[in-house]
C-alpha cells in the first residue's frame, strides 16, 4: 500500500489504509499553529516533538498528564501558549529550569497553566475517549488545585450526598504518542505499562504514533489483546527507532540517565538550553540524524543492556 492522505469524510473512524509516513510529513499534515496538542508520557514521543520544533509550530495549547523534559523542549522554544498539566518537572533529572523560567518569568514567553492531579488529568482523556463531558473522581477535593482551576467542579453526588469532583473531557486536536510497534494501517501495540496512550488516542481528533518497529497485520492479529490503539483512531504511523530517547521504550531500551542528567545541566540557563536545541534539534534534519549525533553505538548498547534484563514474551531469571 502507498501513503494516501487520510481524511475523516466517512465519519470519525480513520480508514483502513497505509498510514506510514515520515515524521516531517505527519507533523506538517496534522499539527497546525495554535492547535490543541496532547502528549503522552509512556513512552515519550521525542522524535515527534523534535520535529515540531524543527517546523517551529507555535502557540500550541499543550495537554499532558505528567511530563519529564519533553514538554519543556516545546516550552523552552516558546511554542506553547497554554499548558494543561498535572506535573512538569525533571523526575530523577531534578529541577526543571526551563519550566521555571516560563512560569516565573514568562521566558521565552508567558505560558498559562491549568492544573489537575495526575489521575484528574488522565480522566479528562478518558471522558474524551468515552464521548461524555466529564468524569468523576475523589482526587483534588479540599485542595487549592480546585481553588485555582474553576474547570474542576465539585458537585454533590446524587446517590450519597457526598462531594465529588468532576473533571472536564479533553479532546485534543492532535495526539502524539510513541509506542513499541504497529502495523502499516495503524493498529498499535504498546508493551508493558503505557500510562494513558490508549485514551489519549481515542480522545484526539488526529493521532500520530511513532513506533520502534513496524510489523505485519498478521503479527498484530496473533495477539489482539495487545492492541492498545486500533487503526480507526490513527492517522499516521512514523517509524522512529529509539524514538523516545533519552526516555525509555519498554523491552526495547531503557532511560539514558547519563544523557538526561547532562541535558538538565545544560538547560539550567536559557543560553544552555538554546545551544542544546540548536545543536541537537535544529542541527539535525531528522530523527535519524539526531540518533547519529547521540551515537547508534550508544543507543544499541542501551538496547542490549535492556535485553539482558527483559524481552517481551520471556521471563529472564
Amino acid at each position, binding site marked *: 500500500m502507498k501513503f494516501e492522505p487520510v481524511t475523516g469524510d466517512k465519519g470519525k473512524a480513520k480508514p483502513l489504509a497505509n498510514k506510514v509516513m515520515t515524521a516531517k510529513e505527519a507533523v506538517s499534515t496534522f499539527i497546525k499553529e495554535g492547535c490543541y496538542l496532547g502528549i503522552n*508520557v*509512556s*513512552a515519550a514521543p521525542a522524535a515527534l516533538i523534535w520535529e515540531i520544533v524543527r517546523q517551529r509550530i507555535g502557540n500550541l495549547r499543550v495537554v499532558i498528564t*505528567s511530563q*519529564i523534559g519533553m514538554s519543556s523542549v516545546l516550552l523552552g522554544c516558546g511554542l506553547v501558549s497554554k499548558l494543561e*498539566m*498535572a*506535573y*512538569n*518537572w525533571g*523526575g*530523577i533529572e531534578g529541577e526543571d529550569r526551563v519550566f521555571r523560567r516560563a*512560569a*516565573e518569568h514568562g521566558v521565552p514567553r508567558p505560558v498559562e497553566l491549568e*492544573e*489537575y*492531579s*495526575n*489521575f*484528574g488529568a*488522565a480522566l479528562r482523556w*478518558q471522558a474524551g475517549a468515552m464521548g461524555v463531558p466529564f468524569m468523576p*473522581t*475523589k*482526587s*483534588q*477535593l*479540599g*485542595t*487549592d*488545585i480546585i481553588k485555582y482551576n474553576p474547570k474542576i467542579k465539585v458537585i454533590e453526588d446524587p446517590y450519597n450526598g457526598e*462531594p*465529588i469532583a468532576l473533571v472536564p473531557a479533553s479532546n485534543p486536536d492532535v495526539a502524539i504518542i510513541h509506542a513499541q510497534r504497529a502495523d502499516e494501517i495503524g493498529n498499535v501495540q504498546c*508493551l*508493558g*505499562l*503505557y*500510562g*494513558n496512550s*490508549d485514551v489519549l488516542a481515542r480522545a484526539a481528533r488526529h493521532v500520530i504514533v511513532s513506533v520502534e518497529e513496524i510489523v505485519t497485520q498478521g503479527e498484530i492479529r496473533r495477539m489482539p489483546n495487545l492492541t492498545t490503539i486500533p487503526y480507526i483512531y490513527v492517522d499516521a504511523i512514523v517509524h522512529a527507532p529509539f524514538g523516545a530517547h533519552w*526516555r*525509555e521504550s*519498554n*523491552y526495547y*531500551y*531503557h*532511560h*539514558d*540517565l*547519563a*544523557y538526561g*542528567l*547532562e541535558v538538565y545541566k545544560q538547560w539550567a540557563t536559557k543560553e544552555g538550553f538554546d545551544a542544546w536545541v540548536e545543536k541537537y534539534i535544529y542541527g539535525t534534519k531528522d530523527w535519524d540524524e539526531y540518533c547519529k549525533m547521540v551515537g547508534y553505538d*550508544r543507543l544499541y*548498547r542501551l538496547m542490549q*543492556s*535492556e535485553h*539482558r*534484563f527483559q524481552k517481551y514474551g520471556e*521471563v529472564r531469571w
Partner: protein
Amino acid sequence: MAEYAKDYTLPELMAATVAREFKDGEIAFIGVGMPLIAASVAKFTHAPNFNIMVEFGAFAYSPRRLPLCVDCAVNCERAYWTGTLRDVMSAQQAGFVDVACISGAQIDKYGNLNSTCIGDYYKPKVRLAGSGGANDLASSAKRTVIMMRQEGRRFVNKCDYITSPGYLDGPGAREKAGLPGGGPAAVITTMGVFRFDEETKEMYLEKIHPGVKLEDIKASVQWDLAVSPNLEVTEPPTEEQVLVMRTLDPVMVYLGNGRDVLAGDFERFIKMFEDSYPVMTELLKKKGMI
C-alpha cells in the same frame, strides 16, 4: 533483631525509617527516589510480600536494577500486571492501596503539602513541579508516609498552595471534603519522625534522629510544635537494611550524589545497570524470591 549498621548516612537512616513504616502483605503506591529504596528494603528484609504499584501502570514488579522513573521500563520487569495509569489510580481510589509515599516543599501542622509554588500562584517566587500523582495518593491511600528535607521555611503555618491534602483544617475536614483515604501517618525528615495526634490531627515530634538537637527542630517549624512525652531517638538502620540499599543503589543515585557522578558519564551509568544484574539476581535467590 538484626544488628545495627555501624556506619550509615542520613539518607540511609531516613530510608530505613520509612521502610519500617511498611508492613508485610501491604500494597504500596511508590514513586521513585528514596521511598523506592525504602520499599525495596522492606521487601528484602521484614516484608517479603510487600508489593508495589507504579503510577503509569505496573504492579508487583521485581526488578534487578534501580527504577529511574514512574513510567520506567524497569517497572515492567517481572511484573504480574502492566497497563494503564487509570487502572492503578482506580485501585487506589477504591481503597486497595495501604500506604503511599509523598513529599513536598512545604508542610503545615495538619500535614497538608505544597509541591506547586512558593509565593503567589499567579506570580510564583519559585514554581515547582505540580501535583503529579501526589494529590491522588494523598486523597485515596489508606495512609501516607511523607518524606521531606527539613529546612528553614518548609514547616509553615500555612502552605502557599495546598497540593496534596493532609488533614486540611483539622478533625473531620477530610471526611467533609469527601476524601476516601486516611491521611498522613508519619512525616520522616532529615531531622526526625513526626506523627499526628489522633484527636487534634496536629503533627507532633515522635522521634529525633541521632545527633539532632530538639531546639534546631523547633527552630525549623513555624508553629509551636508539640513533642511526644516519650520522645525517642530514631532507631538506626540494620546491617541488612544498609546492605540492601547499597546493593540496589551502589552509585547512590537516590541516597547520595550519584546523579552528579552519572551526569554525562554513559559508561559509568551502563556499567551500574549491567553490574546490577548478577548482584540483584543473587540477592533475589538468597531471599528465595526466584
